[in-house]
């Protein structure tokens, strides 16, 4: 009972901090946090594939970038497009992309899955580079109007204001993460873990493995698309180098791994760690690559279970210690 109260207080404190944050730190760090929240969602969608279903995707940027481009292009060409539909267009485009690619992808797993996703991701990348008249080539799509958040007759909030957009992005990301969280708690969500651990058994139980995989793939892709749409609205600029490049496919894998792929919230920790790292590195050195590279090597060598794994093992050690003490006390 008491611990539950603490939990509520903790949550309330986090909420208050999140609400007050932009008023304390200024525009720059507000944007940093928005970016972090978008990447958290992105990394969680990847972990839905990787951690839950056991599918390693090397082309997740296909959905993130696809969503970002769709939103940007829609806002450029459809005058007066409201905010929420713009975000949904990003998500839907990613769903469509997932639908198109899933018939080929669900048949395979392991390295073949990784390679096929890589191929699709790269294909999208070069296509967006080459069809300059739609995507703007290297320049990308930028300077499109950012619609205000409107409830007709009630309110209209300007989204070019970083603080307002901060609240909007946090709500969208928060809601998306909640939906994914509940999804993993449903019976179906448990089946996908079964696909990871023992696909044959799931198949014997009467579930079609390819269909299950396809559904997870579509959900994961769709929310990655929403993350991409939020990214497009934040940057007011979408470019191949920013959203479709292969690094953007590696980034969520790194975030998930550093945070810990065994946990739902691990990728958020990973996103936070990488964001903070990025800020710190750029503040103190130009050798960004050196530090990032060394961090990767060290993490893999010494913290292979990721940040949440590290926490768990520390907790375990503490717990064992204290319980040992308890036994000692009892004995005496």
């Amino acid at each position: 009972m008491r611990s539950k109260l603490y939990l509520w207080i903790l949550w309330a404190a986090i909420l208050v901090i999140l609400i007050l944050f932009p008023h304390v730190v200024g525009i720059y760090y507000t944007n940093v946090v928005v970016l972090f929240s978008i990447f958290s969602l992105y990394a969680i969608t990847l972990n839905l594939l990787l951690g839950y279903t056991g599918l390693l995707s090397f082309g997740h940027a296909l959905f993130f970038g696809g969503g970002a481009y769709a939103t940007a292009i829609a806002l450029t060409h459809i005058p007066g497009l409201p905010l929420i539909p713009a975000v949904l267009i990003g998500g839907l485009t990613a769903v469509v992309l997932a639908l198109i690619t899933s018939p080929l992808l669900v048949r395979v797993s392991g390295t073949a899955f990784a390679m096929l996703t890589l191929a699709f991701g790269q294909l999208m990348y070069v296509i967006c580079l080459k069809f300059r008249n739609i995507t703007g080539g290297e320049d990308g799509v930028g300077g499109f109007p950012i619609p205000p958040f409107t409830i007709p007759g009630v309110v209209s909030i300007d989204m070019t204001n970083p603080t307002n957009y901060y609240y909007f992005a946090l709500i969208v990301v928060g809601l998306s993460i909640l939906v994914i969280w509940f999804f993993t708690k449903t019976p179906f969500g448990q089946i996908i873990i079964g696909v990871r651990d023992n696909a044959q058994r799931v198949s014997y139980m009467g579930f079609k493995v390819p269909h299950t995989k396809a559904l997870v793939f579509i959900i994961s892709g769709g929310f990655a698309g929403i993350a991409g749409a939020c990214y497009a609205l934040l940057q007011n600029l979408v470019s191949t180098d920013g959203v479709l490049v292969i690094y953007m496919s590696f980034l969520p894998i790194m975030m998930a791994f550093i945070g810990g792929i065994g946990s739902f919230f691990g990728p958020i920790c990973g996103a936070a760690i990488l964001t903070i790292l990025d800020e710190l590195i750029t503040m103190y050195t130009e050798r960004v690559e050196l530090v990032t590279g060394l961090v990767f090597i060290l993490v893999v060598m010494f913290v292979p279970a990721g940040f949440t794994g590290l926490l768990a093992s520390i907790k375990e050690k503490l717990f064992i210690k204290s319980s040992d003490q308890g036994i000692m006390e009892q004995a005496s």
Partner: protein
Amino acid sequence: MDSTIAMYVAQFINGMAYGMLLFLVASGLTLIFGMMGILNIAHASFFMLSAYFCHTFLELTGSFWLALLLAPVVAAFFGILCERFLLRKIHAFGHIPELLITVGISLVILEGVKLFWGTEPFLVATPKTLQGFIWISDLKYPIYRVFIVGFAFFILGLMALVLYKTRLGMVVRAAVSDADMVNALGINVPLVFMLVFGIGTWLAGLAGVIITPILTVFPGMADQIGMDAFVVVVTGGFGSLIGAFIVSLCIGELNSFGIQFIPKLAPVLMFTFMAVVLAFKPTGFFGERE
């Protein structure tokens, strides 16, 4: 020979030369993946490292042949160090840690290159003995590119010889299909793996030296060719030397004739090719492993 035909012949050799260069890089990568199951993102970085060593050896000695002999060996030495002290320790954890650590290694190499050689691009002259042209009917074609093709064939023959005619090759092939069994037979598998990793980086190193006279040595050259090599390995099938060879040629020709006929879409061709092949045969042309 008609001038149009001469152009096509030239394009064909261009494609061959580039394809063979790609094969040198990709053969090492496919060997490493086939034997050890390691997705080595840093492979192209060793290629770049060797190109830089080549530049330095050329500055010191002026002999291209000496550079061709030494630079890949030095690169392979660094490769072996990475295998022994980093990759071996995490091999049990699976693909993702390996991926992450090789990304880390590639970033460190990039930064190391910048620290030691600076950021300016280096152009390296074609070795004196290989300058000039040969006449194919009435087509005047540079000798060096023909040399690349010949050299790659030589290496392919050498590898086939080692893999199929020597004891080491037998052990390596056996270790690919069942490492545990080979280990149980009393063969030191980690040592074999280290050797294979060394040979793989040595091959990338060879490509790094061979390419310097036709491509600028600069810190971005690893990204330039790494993706192509990866595509070759994936499309050819992991671990398949013959697959890597055939796909390298295909991609070289696709590049040449793509530029000739549909220059706007030439870069799209390669990935379309890869996606189509994988869609029909997820293990690649000659791959059996997933």
